[in-house]
């Protein structure tokens, strides 16, 4: 291996992993853009065009990965515009300057950050169409209104399409009025996703489906051990495979470029590579677990303290330890990215949640300026945080630059599972003591795990992405202390759906259930008793509205028949559990009740989940229900099956056979109840997930009297607990 290759490798790797970010995540918003007055249509901003035939095209500045954002954004514009929904289409914004900073799509922030700006886009256009019509009719514009794709004044009606030319000549108003909530006709109704017809016809274009003239397809062999270095390459056999065109060493490994995916895979199988496996060659899950144990014995950072904190712990304190595994994302569409690098321009076509995060790396590889680079974003075959990472873009750019033709890098399923940016594992130690009324008077939560921020070299404090669900515990407990200790790991880490709220609420909501049972109280009543004060308060730096959390708990319990179930004679092996989480980052409160059956072989069947969600104003209830269902199923897969382990520095799992997913037959009935609200809309992509694992754990306890404190809750662990 040449010196130059070593240099390229280290440079690119560190560039790829050093993401250019401000300390706080940025979520791009549509900025006002100079009106485009050329062309046939009326385009008062880069995000909207109305054509002469009345077609309304909206450009979405957030990536669509199934969360329904393209449809919600279009609804916001169409509502204010007074559009005929059947005329509305949606296109995807690229990183072209006219669309401004796309930021990232994640953190359940898209609706929060773009709802008002997209309403403004629609309102601006509506006011201009009204002005154009009023001028034509020579009437007071205040007597005109937009309705179903027409501007209307008494008996006069003009379709939007006939006004585009006149409207294009007008100046956009500075502060167009927004509709009152009571006048909404589209927002708040069940609207089917705009991408649905293309999806069911097989015409929807995902990243994997794209093709450019002369494009080659690459399959990349990466170090089997995280951080390993390439020692030698023997590629003669690979090059002899029919269809293989090039074999290229890139920063992450060796890429085989071919005229079909099959040839690329066959060529890759024929590679003979030697790796210097480096520092992690003997790393294992067992060793990582021991590391967590050792670290948890040391002092960490106290991230929240109320009252006297742990010093107030009573003599009869209750203690428990919980652990959660590392997880892979396993999107249905394996990672993929396509790049077309030319001497003066670079086009990327990649299903990305964070194109901006790849820019610095693309510039470094190509030597091009930002304005010479454009990232185009097709549909994402699932994201869940994985596609915020730049690795698949970096690889495609390196391959295309070296080959001089467009290259699509296609991950296999094995690549996707074994070269992920993983959800960190964690180890937790909890203590609490109860007062005379049986309510917690002191709560201590100490936990350790590796830092996502540190792993990604983010300019954030190391604990930034580890605390949600722990430091923002919502319950009123007079003495409370939360402490986080940083551990190391060989795993590269990333953002996984709900990030730390994918594991911390399992721990806190399970332990709270333990306390309720210890106190001999109903777990619902116990929680409600700890949410009695309605004043909004700060918890862990976020603003909590305790009444909203209490309400979703009571609503989920009521709809699930919580009281009646507990009064009735229960069937052998059946249990009911409740859990809730205030997802304060995105302003959404969710409670879930799970009904489970624990079978004699230790396996768990979740029969029914009742979910209550308060996400503020419900923009598209049909999609909110879908996202809650999605969070429940995604969370159940993790709760019952999900675990990534390491042996000899290698990820053990390689596909759906050993990293199993919940199947249709295992899918519980899911009921979603949405709280009516006029509060600003909150996010819904993640909040359905956090309560499900603890709701199931609490239901297993209800069914068996055994507490499972380790994820995933496998039959093996349940049988072991039953024998204990």
């Amino acid at each position, binding site marked *: 291996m040449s010196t130059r290759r070593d240099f390229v490798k280290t440079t690119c790797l560190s560039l790829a992993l050093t993401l250019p970010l401000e300390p706080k995540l940025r979520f791009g918003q549509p900025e006002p853009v100079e009106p485009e007055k050329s062309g046939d249509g009326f385009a008062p901003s880069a995000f909207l065009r109305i054509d002469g035939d009345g077609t309304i095209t909206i450009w979405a500045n957030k990536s669509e990965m199934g969360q329904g954002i393209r449809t919600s954004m279009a609804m916001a514009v169409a509502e204010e515009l007074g559009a005929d929904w059947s005329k509305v289409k949606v296109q995807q914004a690229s990183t072209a300057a006219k669309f401004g900073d796309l930021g990232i799509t994640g953190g359940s922030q898209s609706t929060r950050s773009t709802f008002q700006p997209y309403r403004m886009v629609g309102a601006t256009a509506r006011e201009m169409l009204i002005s154009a019509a009023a001028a034509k009719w020579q009437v007071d514009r205040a007597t005109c209104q937009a309705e179903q794709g027409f501007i209307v004044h008494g008996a006069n009606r003009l379709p939007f399409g006939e006004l585009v030319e006149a409207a294009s000549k007008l100046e956009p108003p500075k502060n167009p009025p927004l509709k009152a909530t009571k006048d909404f006709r589209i927002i708040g109704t*069940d609207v089917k996703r705009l991408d649905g017809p293309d999806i069911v016809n097989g015409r929807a274009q995902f990243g994997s489906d794209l093709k450019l003239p002369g494009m080659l397809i690459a399959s990349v062999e990466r170090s089997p051990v995280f951080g390993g270095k390439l020692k030698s390459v023997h590629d003669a056999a690979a090059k002899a495979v029919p269809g293989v065109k090039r074999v290229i060493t890139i920063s992450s490994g060796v890429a085989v470029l071919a005229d079909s995916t099959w040839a690329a895979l066959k060529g890759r199988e024929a590679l003979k590579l030697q790796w210097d496996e480096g520092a992690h060659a003997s790393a294992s899950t067992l060793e990582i677990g021991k590391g967590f144990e050792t670290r948890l014995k040391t002092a960490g950072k106290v991230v929240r303290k109320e009252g006297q904190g742990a010093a107030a712990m009573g003599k009869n304190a209750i203690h428990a330890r919980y652990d959660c595994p590392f997880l892979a994302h396993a999107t249905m569409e394996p990672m993929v990215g396509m790049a077309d690098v030319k001497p003066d321009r670079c086009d990327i076509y990649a299903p990305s949640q964070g194109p901006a995060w790849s820019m610095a790396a693309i510039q470094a590889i190509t030597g091009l300026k930002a304005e010479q680079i454009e990232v185009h974003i097709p549909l994402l*075959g699932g994201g869940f945080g994985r596609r915020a990472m730049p690795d698949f873009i970096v690889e495609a750019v390196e391959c295309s630059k070296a080959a001089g033709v467009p290259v699509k890098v296609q991950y296999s*399923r094995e690549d996707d599972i074994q070269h992920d940016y993983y959800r960190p594992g964690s180890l937790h130690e909890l203590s609490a003591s109860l007062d005379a009324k049986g309510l917690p008077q002191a709560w201590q939560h100490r936990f350790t795990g590796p830092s996502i921020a540190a792993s990604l070299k983010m300019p954030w404090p190391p604990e930034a992405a580890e605390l949600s669900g722990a430091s923002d515990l919502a319950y009123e407990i007079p003495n409370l202390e939360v402490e986080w200790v940083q551990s190391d790991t060989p795993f590269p880490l990333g953002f996984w759906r709900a990030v730390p709220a994918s594991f911390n609420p399992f721990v806190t909501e399970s332990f709270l259930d333990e306390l309720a049972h210890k106190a001999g109280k109903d777990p619902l009543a116990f929680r409600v008793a700890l949410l009695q004060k309605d004043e909004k308060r700060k918890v862990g730096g976020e603003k909590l509205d305790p009444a909203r959390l209490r309400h979703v708990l009571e609503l989920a319990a009521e709809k699930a028949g919580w009281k009646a179930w507990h009064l009735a004679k229960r069937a052998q092996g059946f249990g009911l559990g409740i859990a809730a989480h205030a997802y304060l980052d995105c302003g959404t409160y969710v409670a879930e009740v799970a009904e489970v059956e624990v079978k004699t072989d230790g396996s768990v069947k979740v029969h029914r989940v009742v979910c209550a969600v308060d996400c503020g104003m419900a923009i598209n209830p049909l999609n909110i229900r879908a996202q809650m269902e999605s969070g429940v199923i995604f969370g159940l897969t993790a709760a019952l099956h999900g675990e990534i382990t390491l042996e000899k520095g290698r990820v053990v799992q390689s596909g759906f056979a050993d990293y199993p997913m919940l199947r249709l037959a295992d899918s519980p009935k899911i009921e979603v*109840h949405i709280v009516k609200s006029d509060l600003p809309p909150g996010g819904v992509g993640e909040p359905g997930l956090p309560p499900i694992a603890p709701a199931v754990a609490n239901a297993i306890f209800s069914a068996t009297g055994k507490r499972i404190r380790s994820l995933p809750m496998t039959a093996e662990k349940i049988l072991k607990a039953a024998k204990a």
Partner: protein
Amino acid sequence: MTRVEFSLNGFSKAVEVDPDMPLLWVLRDVLGLTGTKFGCGAGVCGACTMHLEGEAVRACQTPIKEVAGKSVTTIEGLSKDGSHPVQKAWIEEDVAQCGYCQPGQIMQAAWLLSKHPHPTDADINEGMGDNICRCGTYNRIRCAIHRAAGDVPASTSSTGKGA
């Protein structure tokens, strides 16, 4: 390289490829029909489900040489305009989220209905058991299959309205 002739969505096709190349890659890379998706390459996720001689088959596990002289239907050929009852039911129930697995789900469901015109929940559990959806659209898939069969959905997905 071998010349293989087969029927694709009602049209005769001939390709000259490695006889071991799975039909999945012939469809996607050679013929440019990308509705059939790559999910695992191991026949365990169902994203590449299509019909071979009327049976639901995983394209990633079907070498092109085994397709010679046979009839293949992909999502693009299920109907001309999305009018197959399963496709219509998928829209009615707003099944898709990311949508990547859905062509495979739809092809599997269309096959299931050809075997069981009025499937029970148990038939659906069994018939759809090998198709993974990571977004968790399973309950809507179940409802959509009952709807496509012309049956009142026996189990509903989220029924909750405002509260």
